[in-house]
Each structure stands twice: as structure tokens, then as C-alpha cells.
């Protein structure tokens, strides 16, 4: 009788122990992290050294996939194209988002409505519907060209010209600035108005206080937006897949589109795995570079309350 009681007590103790409770609640993440991140990463590492194609048994081919990558002209071009896209779309998008957020900081009831209005493009941004609309807008007889012709400018073959095909894709990304805008708007609200009043007394104009007060105070948020948007820009897929299909002549053959095609069109899984790993390295380097450089331009005082 006493023994049973004791065992019950120790079971109770075990169940309500902080370690047990902690691991119980964290269990979904632990399983998910192992099953959906660590194991796939190991698997991907292994397959990147093989010629696996989903059908036949894979052969271990060492570094062949990686060597092949650096001799693959299309691959090198897709790296260049992706970097170009990230390099133009992210800063443009952030600048635009900051501009609109700044524009919508007035104390007015209408501002809430305006923010919703400006957020709408981002709301549906990831959807296939918007990509299809964009494709029509920039088609040869589309709306953009008819506006250009009304202005007396010759119409442009957006998707037929290697140099121009990227432009509609970048514009579409910039157009979906909503979430960055809202984060900026929240940051702007945090800046004490006394800062601006003091600057005004010191004789600073609006432009000066923007550069000397707004930007430094926002710098932690700029960093956050920059990192998040850079990562998501590297993964851009749907636009290129739907609107340009990577063309013309691979001018918009984004990295993730090329990985997709190698994996699911040619079933070259080993090669695609190697490509993913190179992508991870490139992205990590760029993220690291952003973080390293941030020490020079992010003022952490502003981030702490």
C-alpha cells in the first residue's frame, strides 16, 4: 500500500517537474526541428554528392555536382540575375515603404484607412491571381503600354527584351511594400516627439531632422526589414514562374526557379540539392555581411526602451 502511494507520488513529481513540463510543451518543436529541418538537411547534403533522380538507385559521385555548377553557364547567370533582382528590389521596396509610412504618420483619423488602402496590394501579393494580372498589365498590348502610347512614348516589349524583363518583376515586388510599411509606421510612432521639438528649436528643417533623428532612431527596424526582405527576395519564385517563365533567354531565371526546374522538370535531385547548398552559403554570406555592416549604422539605443 505504502509502496504504491510512493510510486504515485514520484510519478506526480515527474509529471509536474519543470523539465518534464518544458519538454512536453516544446515537444512539437523538437519533433519538427529534427524531422522537418535537421533530417532533410542531412538528406540534402548526402544527395548533393549523388546523381539521384527519383527513379534509379543513386550513385555517389563526390564533388561532381558542385564542379558541374561552376561550369554551368545557366546557373552562373541565374546567380547574377538573382543578385541583381535582390539588389534593386529590396532597397527600392524599403525606401518606398519608409516614404509611405512617413507620409502616413499624421494625426488624423483617415490615416488608419489610408494604411489599409496601401496595404491591399501586399495582402494579396503572394497569390497567383496578382501575378496573372501583372502579366496582362505589362503585355505588349497591355495597360502599361497603352498609357505609354498615350503619353507619346513608343510601346515597350517588356517580356521580350532581356534588359527589361526584370523591370515588371521588380516593380511588382516594390508594389507589395505593405508589411514593411506597417513595421516602419510602428517604429515611427515610438520616436519621442520631444526629439523633433528640440531639433526645431535648434533650427533644423524637416529634411535635417529626418536624417539626424528619424533614420538613426529607425535603424534597428531598417536592419530587421532589410534582413527579412533580402531573405524573401532570394526565394522569389511565383512571379518568375508565372509571368516570365525565366525568360527571355534566362534573363529572369531566378535561383529558386532554376532549382525548381532542375528538381521537378528534369528530376535531377542530386544537382538541385547541391544548388540549394550553394544558395544557403550565398545567402548566409550576404546576411552576415548585412549584420557586420550594421554595427556601423545601427544605433542600438533606439531599439531599447
Amino acid at each position, binding site marked *: 500500500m505504502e509502496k504504491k502511494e510512493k510510486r504515485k507520488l514520484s510519478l506526480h513529481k515527474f509529471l509536474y517537474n519543470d523539465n518534464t513540463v518544458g519538454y512536453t510543451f516544446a515537444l512539437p518543436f523538437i*519533433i519538427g526541428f529534427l524531422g522537418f529541418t535537421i533530417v532533410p538537411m542531412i538528406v540534402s547534403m548526402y544527395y548533393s554528392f549523388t546523381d539521384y533522380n527519383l527513379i534509379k538507385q543513386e550513385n555517389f559521385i563526390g564533388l561532381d555536382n558542385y564542379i558541374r555548377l561552376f561550369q554551368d553557364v545557366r546557373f552562373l547567370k541565374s546567380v547574377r540575375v538573382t543578385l541583381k533582382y535582390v539588389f534593386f528590389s529590396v532597397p527600392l521596396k524599403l525606401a518606398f515603404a519608409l516614404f509611405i509610412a512617413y507620409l502616413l504618420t499624421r494625426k488624423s483619423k483617415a490615416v488608419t484607412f489610408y494604411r489599409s488602402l496601401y496595404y*491591399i496590394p501586399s495582402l494579396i501579393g503572394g497569390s497567383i491571381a496578382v501575378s*496573372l494580372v501583372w502579366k496582362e498589365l505589362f503585355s505588349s498590348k*497591355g495597360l502599361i503600354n497603352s498609357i505609354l502610347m498615350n503619353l507619346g512614348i513608343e510601346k515597350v516589349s517588356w517580356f521580350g527584351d532581356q534588359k527589361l524583363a526584370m523591370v515588371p518583376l521588380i516593380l511588382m515586388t516594390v508594389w507589395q511594400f505593405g508589411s514593411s510599411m506597417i513595421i516602419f509606421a510602428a517604429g515611427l510612432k515610438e520616436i519621442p516627439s520631444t526629439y523633433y521639438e528640440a531639433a526645431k528649436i535648434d533650427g533644423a528643417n524637416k529634411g535635417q531632422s529626418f536624417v539626424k533623428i528619424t533614420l538613426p532612431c529607425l535603424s534597428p527596424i531598417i536592419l530587421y526589414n532589410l534582413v527579412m526582405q533580402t531573405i524573401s527576395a532570394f526565394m522569389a*519564385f*511565383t512571379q518568375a514562374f*508565372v509571368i516570365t517563365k525565366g525568360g527571355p533567354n534566362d534573363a529572369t531565371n531566378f535561383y529558386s526557379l532554376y532549382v525548381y526546374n532542375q528538381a521537378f522538370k528534369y528530376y535531377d535531385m542530386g544537382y538541385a540539392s547541391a544548388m540549394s547548398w550553394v544558395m*544557403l552559403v550565398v545567402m548566409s554570406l550576404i546576411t552576415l555581411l548585412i549584420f557586420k555592416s550594421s554595427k556601423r549604422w545601427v544605433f542600438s539605443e533606439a531599439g531599447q526602451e
Partner: protein
Amino acid sequence: MMGIKFRKQIGKVLYHAFVLCFGFVMVYPVLWMITGSLKNNVEILNGSLSLIPPNWRWENFANGFRGFGGITFVTFFKNSFIVTVIATFATVVSSACVAYSFARIKYRGRKVLFTAMLCTMMLPGQIILIPQYIIYNKLGMVGSILPLVLPHFFGQAFFIYQMMQFMAGIPRELDEAATIDGCSKYTIFSRVILPLLKPALVTTVIIQFYWKWDDFMGPLIYLNKPQDYTVSIAIKLFADASSTTDYGAMFAMSTLSLLPVFLIFLFFNKYLVEGISTSGLKG
């Protein structure tokens, strides 16, 4: 005196006029798509600026709904709803549990797990896309909705982090009071934390619903039978179906596909904006 006041008034009017006009330009493509669902091919393709259809072609909706290959859009909408609802529900529940463990319980290994979670947040999804496909393929799950919903049962770093931020704002005294009243950590979670977490849960539901509803790549890779397709894949195929796409019908289905997103936005606008500004939504 009057002069300054007057100038201020003018400035105000100019400001609102500019913001409204610019906002109109921003949403123009969306409006163009919605009204395009009532136009005919010629109207859509000749680049007309007009938002008003010359004659309202409601039949576009009927034509669109017919779908392709004998499968109507009713099926595609149903599929999208099933996937989205399961995935969203799973994400909210699992992420809340994990967030609670990170935010409120002290246990060995917590820091390591938390760091691991932050890493997954920064990890590009595409690196694990292919191996995941290979694994699902070996498990025989490709062609079912399992790969689209399964990962959501194990918490999502982005939402876990967001909920942790929110929990940090819930006073610890509440936990202590509940402990004194005889609550265990399990009941504190279900009786104290979860009810107070509601705003964060609602935000998670909305954002995850959007992501899942609009998801294109997942269904593109994992679904291979037309009767299982989600709306996003169906619209793409509808556009590709033949050389003579019925653009009006395509826009009609596109508009309908965005309807749930718009409705949720309309009802939960406040939550959404708050959720994004505290957590930072990608996109």
C-alpha cells in the same frame, strides 16, 4: 493669423488629395482585376484604362466555375479550404504550446532549443524543399495533402516568436497567483495564458490563413491529381488550359479566390495591422 490658418487648411486638403490619388494608383491593378471579371477578352486585352465594363458579363463567373476537365471550381475551393483550415488550426495550437514552454518554463536545454528556433527562422525554406520532397516521396505521401499540412503540427518559428513576445507582456504574477490556487503548469497554460493570448492567436490565424490560401509552390509540387488541386493551381492551369484563354472567366475566378482574404481583412483589419507591427510579417 488668418493667412497661416488658411495655408494650413490648403496643406491639409493637398495632403489628403495626394494620399488618396496615390492610393488609388496603388490599388488600381486590383480594381482592374476585379472589374476585369465582368469584361470580355477584347476589353481586357486591348489595354483599356477604364474600370467600368461596357456591358457587365456576369456569365464570366458561370463560365469560370465550370473549371476544366470536368472538375468545377467548387472542388478546388473545397480543397483549398480543407488544406488551409487544417494547417492554420495546427499551427496555432502547436505554436502556442511551444511558445509557452520557451516563455514561461525554466528547464535544461531551453536556450539551445530557442537558438535552434531562431536559426530555422532565418533558414531559407528552399534548402529543405527538395529533401523534404524526396522523403515524402519515399514515404508514399506525394499526391496527397499530407505534405501540405503535416509540417504545421510542429510549430512555426515565426509564430512561436511572435507569441513569445506577446506572452512577455502577460504579468508573471498571474502565474504565481494561479500556482497558489493550486494550478499546475498545464492548467496555467489552458486557463490563464491561452485566454489572454487571444489577440496573438487571432493574428496567427489570419496571417497563416493568408499564407496557406495563397500558397502556390506547395500544391504545385505535391498535388498531382486535378481533383485534389487547390484554387491557386487551378487558376494557373485554367490560364494555361488552351491557347484561347477566357480572360474574363480567369479574372472572375481570381477575384473569387481573393474573396476570403478580403473578407478576413475587412473584419480583422485592426488585429492584422497590430500583429504585423509587433512581429514583422514577410512579403
